[in-house]
């Protein structure tokens, strides 16, 4: 049993845990704490008024109308016996004093803190244009409900800005609803940041086969409204103008770390830096003992990928990292576990399941190992310096476990084994990821440097 510094009482029975962030990672961590024997006070703080809900259906079933946006509340594995502070964002953190400050000024003390504040949608950059009726982002349940209402009114044309996962799934839903849709993407193909433009080109063909007006290599420069404040048209940087009634800005995400400004933690736009055991670093790269991070907002070194700091904005990362963080919050130092989960994701679009394991953007080369891109059924494997680092499947998800084992074992690339359906002429080709300096919708796995002391942002030391 662990004791809190100097107080002598057993943390497991008498301690206080505060989890800031009441979405998937926060909920799964809370469950794991209770399952791990924690019987003390557990408080979950969330800026949204809703109890933890699942986000993936929001860009799929909810937009299609089969599922109400309010009905994706996540099931719970156990009775949490938690205190919920929902609809109240955290606004500050006093690490030495072990207190979280909430909006309105109330403070909550903790013995252990989990930071799971996740990300939010990157807004349309022009505030006046973003306020037009018909301009949306899609991240929250409320966003999805509003967009669903607008799509149900059958707009004459929908513009999706950014062809990442969210943008592509919105376009897919629009076509399934029979709505005309234009997708504008700055990169050469959809999903370029996540899977590279070689495989992204296959996704682009799926867009076009399903009637999407896909325009790559273009930027939307302006959204224009009428006198009533309703969106009417969009201007592109190739000189064209589109008549649209709805625009969905699918521009990636921003990490919710502003509330940690002044806390002295290694937190910034790239996330909250932590060690492989989810313990958060302070601004000097020194690990803290009582502050942990998990989910989209956390960035931690991954041994399989050269100890590079990864921030992974995927569902399974929130689930698995929350479990490790919760374990380590309760464990004695010798019992701590490293977070070794190999990232995975899925996206359903245009009737095809796209899944991945590993970090495709770590690869320079890609080879199609099974199936055929023409049939939209294949496995693409990514390599870095002669090792397998990722696999992306289109309707071939059954292979992911096999390739996860290959990645964990740093198996050779190109894979030396032969397949019955593999043409002998297949060779690795450059995977063609876009220049990271050129903004696109952004990959959902962010490689954010090797060191927590990388200072690409301004650190504001705590006052006093």
């Amino acid at each position: 049993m662990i004791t809190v510094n100097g107080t002598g009482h057993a943390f497991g029975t008498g301690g206080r845990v505060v989890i800031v962030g009441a979405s998937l990672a926060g909920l799964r961590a809370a469950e794991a704490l209770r399952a791990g024997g924690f019987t003390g006070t557990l408080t979950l703080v969330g800026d949204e008024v809703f109890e933890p809900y699942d986000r993936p259906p929001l860009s799929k079933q909810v937009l299609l109308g089969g599922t109400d946006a309010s009905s994706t509340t996540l099931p719970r594995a156990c009775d949490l016996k938690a205190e919920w502070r929902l609809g109240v964002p955290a606004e500050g953190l006093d690490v030495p004093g072990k207190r979280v400050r909430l909006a309105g000024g109330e403070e909550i003390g903790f013995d252990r803190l989990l930071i799971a504040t996740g990300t939010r949608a990157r807004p349309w950059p022009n505030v006046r244009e973003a306020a037009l009726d018909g301009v949306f982002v899609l991240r929250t349940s409320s966003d999805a409900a509003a967009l669903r209402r607008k799509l149900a009114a059958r707009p004459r044309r929908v513009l999706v800005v950014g062809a990442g996962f969210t943008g592509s799934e919105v376009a897919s839903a629009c076509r399934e609803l029979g709505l005309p849709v234009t997708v504008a993407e700055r990169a050469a193909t959809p999903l370029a940041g996540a899977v590279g433009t070689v495989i992204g080109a296959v996704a682009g063909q799926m867009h076009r086969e399903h009637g999407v007006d896909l325009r790559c290599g273009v930027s939307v420069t302006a959204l224009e409204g009428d006198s009533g404040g309703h969106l009417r048209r969009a201007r592109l940087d190739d000189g064209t103008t589109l008549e649209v009634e709805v625009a969905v800005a699918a521009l990636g995400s921003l990490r919710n770390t502003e509330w940690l400004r002044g806390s002295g933690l290694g937190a910034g736009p790239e996330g909250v830096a932590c060690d492989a055991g989810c313990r958060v670093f302070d601004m000097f790269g020194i690990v803290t003992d009582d502050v942990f991070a998990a989910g989209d907002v956390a960035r931690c070194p991954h041994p399989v990928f050269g100890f590079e700091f990864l921030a992974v904005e995927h569902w399974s990362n929130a689930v698995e990292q929350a479990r490790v963080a919760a374990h380590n919050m309760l464990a004695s130092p010798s019992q701590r576990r490293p977070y070794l989960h190999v990232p995975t994701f899925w996206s359903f679009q245009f009737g095809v399941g796209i899944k991945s394991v590993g970090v495709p953007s770590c690869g320079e080369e890609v080879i199609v190992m099974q199936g055929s891109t023409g049939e939209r059924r294949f496995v693409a494997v990514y390599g870095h310096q002669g090792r397998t680092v990722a696999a992306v499947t289109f309707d071939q998800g059954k292979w992911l476990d096999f390739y996860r084992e290959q990645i964990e074992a740093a198996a050779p690339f190109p894979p030396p084994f032969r397949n019955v359906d593999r043409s002998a002429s297949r060779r690795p080709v450059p995977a063609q990821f876009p220049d990271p300096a050129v903004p696109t919708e952004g990959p959902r796995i962010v490689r954010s440097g090797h060191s927590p002391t990388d200072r690409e942002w301004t650190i504001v030391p705590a006052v006093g």
Partner: protein
Amino acid sequence: MTMRVVVDLNRCQGYGQCFFLAPGVFELRGEEALMYDPGPGEAQRAAVLRAAAACPVQAIMVERTGRP
């Protein structure tokens, strides 16, 4: 009273047991794009629990406890 359901779609491999056992709740689009109702009505409880039990990769989670 509705149920709460979530499917780990990384784990799902499209075996299809769920949409045979609870066709009003689970639906396969294409070969492996599973869509489901995360909040099915109480009338579906028996079917959903059968589907969760039958899933070969145990990807379906159904809430079993009270709140909060």
